[in-house]
């Protein structure tokens, strides 16, 4: 429970929080000396050649990127591979970021592009329902827990069958709670197109779920 709380907290760190890592040291043993609270400072440090700063960048954003990739492919193995690809592309292309958009938006854009290019129109395998890690401990009723797990697996399997842009829009809206404006920026669409994609994604998701029932 404690580790879950810590992980939940880590996902809510705000840019304005002054977060430093007590006792943190670089690979050479020297203090990191990087302001962890500001993505812009991190980017500058990365461009100055600091591998430690890039490590911090990866640590800060890996969970969001992993969740994004998982939403596209529905299994941990592919999500891990895709996440690695995303950060590799980030490492290569960081110099193109300066001043153009926020780091977070840019990361999502790269993540979506990597996922779309790798996944394409193929339907990747999703996690088996029997995987015990999916059992939700919130419910005391085992039967209810199993039903919830099965429903979740059906929804994930249906999401990965959505057309690419609809899938991307739904994942970004539902599971990353990005605004339509942010999604439009990431996908290169208008806000109206994002909303239309979201509408059709929900409609198709409904049809896919009904077809499996």
């Amino acid at each position, binding site marked *: 429970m404690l580790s879950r709380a810590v*992980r939940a907290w880590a996902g809510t760190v705000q840019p304005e929080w002054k977060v430093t890592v007590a006792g943190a040291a670089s690979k050479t043993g020297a203090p990191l000396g990087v302001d962890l609270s500001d993505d812009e400072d991190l980017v500058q440090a990365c461009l100055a050649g600091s591998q430690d700063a890039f490590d911090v960048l*990866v640590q800060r954003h*890996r969970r969001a990127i992993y969740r994004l990739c998982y939403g596209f492919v529905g299994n941990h193995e592919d*999500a891990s591979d895709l996440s690695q690809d995303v*950060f590799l592309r980030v490492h290569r292309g960081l110099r193109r970021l300066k001043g153009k958009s926020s780091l977070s938006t840019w990361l999502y854009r790269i993540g979506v592009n990597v996922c779309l290019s790798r996944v394409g129109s193929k339907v990747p395998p999703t996690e088996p329902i029997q995987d015990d890690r999916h059992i939700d401990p919130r419910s005391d009723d085992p039967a209810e827990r199993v039903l919830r797990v099965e429903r979740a697996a059906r929804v994930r399997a249906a*999401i990965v069958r959505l057309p690419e842009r609809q899938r991307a829009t739904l994942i970004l809206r539902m599971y990353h709670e990005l605004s339509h404006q942010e999604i439009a920026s990431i996908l290169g669409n208008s806000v109206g197109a994002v909303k239309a994609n979201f*509408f059709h994604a929900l*409609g198709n998701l409904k049809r896919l779920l009904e077809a499996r029932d």
Partner: protein
Amino acid sequence: MKHLTPAQLVDLIEGVLPAERAAHVGACARCRQQADELRAVMCEAREVDVPEPSPLIWDHLSQRVRDACGAEPEVGSSGWVPSGSLSRLALAVTTVTVIVAVIVGGILVRSPTEEAAPGGDSVAALLAKLDLGLDGGDTEPDLFESFGEEPAWTLVMTVAQEMEWDDTDAAALVGPGASDRAVLELSPDARRELGRLLEAELAGEGG
């Protein structure tokens, strides 16, 4: 009766559709049913979360990224514009200017007895000759080979050697052969003007 558009239905289920438009749902069974269905699917999808992977996966992912990036050129090296690059950019601009100037100056040095072309502009005449050298030729003249040990060329080589090629490339100003192409591709009028400016500069520096 105008039904709600897909975008308006999304705004409706997200609670941001203006009241006067949202009122349509009260009178329209079709839009009401659509909105209810969308809400139900959203509710079901919202229950789904990414199953938590093994705690080891995070450090493993970071290590894989670190290893993959380690095999790549460093951030800030070739092709990257490092922070505080304004002085390097200025040096790149200066170097390009020097290279262009000395190409022309090298022509002057090689031909000290060249009579001035009509109009008294020897640089312009040399540039015009350069222009003639291009026309009808299959290959571009190799200016740098012909300069050899010319003092002016020695100067530009000294300056260039102090600057990393990657810095000029990172400034997106110079590519291989860019400086000589810059001169060779100038129009005759542009070359005459360049020659005039360079002559004035050289005369001003006593050169």
